[in-house]
């Protein structure tokens, strides 16, 4: 299918779910790209994975009671982020163990809950691997509003997040509330993940969080540039991925992830200063 045909399909009123899916995937990719920069630079990809899995019971409960998936996922993700932040203050246990406990527990809870729902297998697959159909109009406003809120929070708290990432002890000595900043960051990660879960799926959403930011990191040594590049790469990957998936009837989540992975590999080879080519020719 030519890109022109794809544009025609986007404008086709009979296929109204398509532009909706594209909008949501793109906005979610923008959020994940921006928040993902902190995730990548702090080496907290595992937290991102945890939050992504932890939203699952919330989605399952919302699904079972026909509530808003977005609200259910957000609540579950935030509760898990809170539990991890609190339990990780105990120095006897390393943070990754705490995360390992809670995210699998949350995921297990989700599985048990959704097994109560009629049409168990089909809805499970939709949650895990994403889908572009069945998105209510209401979600467009929720995702749009959340995008603005997340970007605003990042804009307002950027220098604090940077200070905590650079040197936690120093941030604490300067009087920053490190615990609260961690918590806010986890909540932002959760929001970005939940918005992405519907189209891309629970398991694959980590790619949206990590891959564009990691790709951007390869391309620049300047954080402001990285934080502009990452959402652009994410949104580009979401658009191209959706186009490819629509044209060849591939699953949308998997196609978006593979598109982003291709971009990452391309950057790894051709990045201006640290890429393979630059190193070989230097």
């Amino acid at each position: 299918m030519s890109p022109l045909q794809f544009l025609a399909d986007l404008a086709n009123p009979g296929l109204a779910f398509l532009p909706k899916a594209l909008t949501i995937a793109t906005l979610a990719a923008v959020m994940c790209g921006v928040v993902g920069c902190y995730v990548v630079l702090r080496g907290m990809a595992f937290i991102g994975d945890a939050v992504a899995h932890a939203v699952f019971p919330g989605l399952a409960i919302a699904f079972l009671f026909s509530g808003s998936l977005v609200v259910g996922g957000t609540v579950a993700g935030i509760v898990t982020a809170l539990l991890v932040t609190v339990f990780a203050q105990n120095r006897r246990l390393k943070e990754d163990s705490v995360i390992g406990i809670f995210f699998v527990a949350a995921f297990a809870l989700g599985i048990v809950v959704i097994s109560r729902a009629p049409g168990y297998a089909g809805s499970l697959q939709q949650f895990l691997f994403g889908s572009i159909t069945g998105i209510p109009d209401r979600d467009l406003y929720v995702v749009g509003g959340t995008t603005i809120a997340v970007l605003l929070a990042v804009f307002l708290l950027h220098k604090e997040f940077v200070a905590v990432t650079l040197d936690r002890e120093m941030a604490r000595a300067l009087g920053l509330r490190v615990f609260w900043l961690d918590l806010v960051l986890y909540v932002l990660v959760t929001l970005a993940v939940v918005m992405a879960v519907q189209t891309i799926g629970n398991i694959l959403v980590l790619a949206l969080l990590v891959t564009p930011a990691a790709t951007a990191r390869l391309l620049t040594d300047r954080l402001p540039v990285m934080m502009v590049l990452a959402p652009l790469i994410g949104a580009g990957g979401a658009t191209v991925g959706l186009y490819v998936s629509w044209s060849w009837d591939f699953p949308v989540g998997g196609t978006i992830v593979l598109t982003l992975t291709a971009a990452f590999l391309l950057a790894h080879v051709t990045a201006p200063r640290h890429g393979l080519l630059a190193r070989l020719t230097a």
Partner: protein
Amino acid sequence: MSAALEMTDVAADLGGRPVLRDVNLRVGAGELVALLGPNGAGKTTLLRAALGLVPLRQGRVSVAGSAPGYVPQRHEFTWDFPASVEDTVLSGLVRRIGLFRRPRAGHWEAVWDALDRVHLNELRKRPVGELSGGQRQRVLLARALVLSPPVLLLDEPFTGLDMPSQETLTALFADLARDRAVVMATHDLAAAAYTCDRLILLNRTVIADGPAAELRDPGAWMRTFDVGPGSHLLKLVGA
């Protein structure tokens, strides 16, 4: 002499284990003081107690100014972060700039002044990951200086640095100590004895405190470092 940093009967624990007991010390403006002791003697804990990062079991810490400047061990910092030298120094001002606010011209001037003091202004746009060990130490120093603190705490600033870098830093510290109190935890006994106005021997508590020339009692050094009378450490410090 009014003390810029004073600790009175300080005791502190770490993970339920007693680390510091009955620590008493005073450091005045204009003094460069070395904090000496073996690993696990509580040097870092003492500095962190002065910063208010360690809860005190008992005793009192008083510090001139709002908070001491702190230069942590170099490995505490995330050097692979995509930040320039000036961004890093600016992060020392994060509280002064204020929540939800962006840096203004005055803040950048403070950053450049601090970089001038450590002779790094020409590298201010460079990513911190590309700096040498000595330059990294000076960036951390500038970050501490950007708030013009009357007390400066340095945790093992010489570790892993070559001689020229160490000498550049030593000269800097001596210069900075002219109008403030500088306390430096270090394992470099010879350099400390040569450059510092005073040495504090610490092992859980202050075992001796005075100018290098007055610390001739081998017993104090032996107790601090847990070495025997034949140790070459005693010859090194001239005890």
